[in-house]
C-alpha cells in the first residue's frame, strides 16, 4: 500500500501528461477545472491514465460522477445546492471535500469539488 505522498506523485505525473500542466501546479488543493484547465473530455483521459498507472479499474461515474447539478431531483434551489443535494454529494463523492463546499453551496462552485486531493483520496481508498 503506497503512502499518500507516493500516490500524489503518480497522480501528478498523470495530470501533467493529460492536461499539459507543470509539476508545481499540481497541488492537493488545486481544482481540476478552475486551476488546471481541465475540460470534460479530459476526465475520460485522466481515468484511462489512472487505471494504467495504478493497475485498477474505475467504473463509469465513480471518480467523476455525471449530472451532479441535475436540477430535476430537487437538489438545487435558488442557485444553491439544497440540503438533499449535499446529502447526495456526500453519498456519490465520499472522496471529495463536500463539507468545505457546504459552507457556501453555490451551484457555480460545484466543479471545485474536483480537486487533485480528491483523486488521491479516491485512489488511496481503492488500493486499500
Amino acid at each position, binding site marked *: 500500500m503506497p503512502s499518500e505522498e507516493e500516490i500524489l506523485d503518480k497522480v501528478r505525473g498523470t495530470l501533467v*501528461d*493529460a492536461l499539459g500542466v507543470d509539476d508545481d501546479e499540481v497541488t492537493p488543493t488545486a481544482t481540476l477545472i478552475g486551476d488546471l484547465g481541465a475540460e470534460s*473530455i*479530459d476526465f*475520460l*483521459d485522466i481515468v*484511462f491514465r489512472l*487505471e494504467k498507472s495504478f493497475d485498477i479499474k474505475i467504473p*463509469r461515474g465513480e471518480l467523476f460522477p455525471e449530472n451532479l447539478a441535475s436540477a430535476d431531483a430537487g437538489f438545487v434551489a435558488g442557485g444553491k445546492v439544497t440540503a438533499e443535494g449535499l446529502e447526495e454529494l456526500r453519498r456519490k463523492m465520499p472522496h471529495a471535500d463536500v463539507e468545505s463546499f457546504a459552507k457556501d453551496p453555490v451551484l457555480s462552485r460545484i466543479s471545485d469539488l474536483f480537486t487533485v486531493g480528491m483523486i488521491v483520496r479516491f485512489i488511496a481508498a481503492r488500493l486499500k
Partner: protein
Amino acid sequence: MRWYWIDRFIEFESGKRARSVKNVSLAEEHLHDHFPGFPVMPGSLMIEGMAQTGGILLGEHFGFRYNVILAKVPKVVFHSWACPGDQLIYSAELLDAREEGGSVSVEATVGDRAVATAEIVFAHLKTDDPQFSRIDQKNFVFRMNLLDILTVGKAGSGAPAEVSGVDGRRGEAVE
C-alpha cells in the same frame, strides 16, 4: 473532395489493432498550397487519417453502436515528411475501449521511415444524447459512409478487408 483520409485497411484485428494505407498524391488540391514548390501532407490531415484508422477500430469493437468522436489528441510527434508518391501506413493499437469512449496509439510510417506517432482519445455519443445536435459533424470520426473503407477491395483479389478476431469478446472492455 470527400473526407476520407485513408484509402484502405490492410489488416484489421477486431478489438486489437488495424493497419491502413494512405497514398499521398499530387492530385490532392491542398498539397499545392501546402506548400507551393514544397508539397507535403499536412500534419493535421495525418492526424485525421490516424483518427479514422483508430476510430473505426474502436467503432467496430462495439459493433458500430456508437458515434465515435475525435475528442482529444494528448500527444503527437512528427518525425519526418510525407510527400506525393509516398505511401503512409497507419498502424493503430486499441489501448482502451469502454462505454464512454476509448483511446488508441498510432504510428505513421513510410517504408522503414517513422513519420509520426500519436495518442488519440475518442468519446462515444449516442444519437439520442441531448448534446448530439450541438456537436459539429466534422468532429465525427466517421459517419456510416466512411465504413466503405472496410469494403475497399484488396489489390488483385477484389476481396474486402477481412476483420479477424471477431468472436464473443466484441463489445467487452479491452484488458
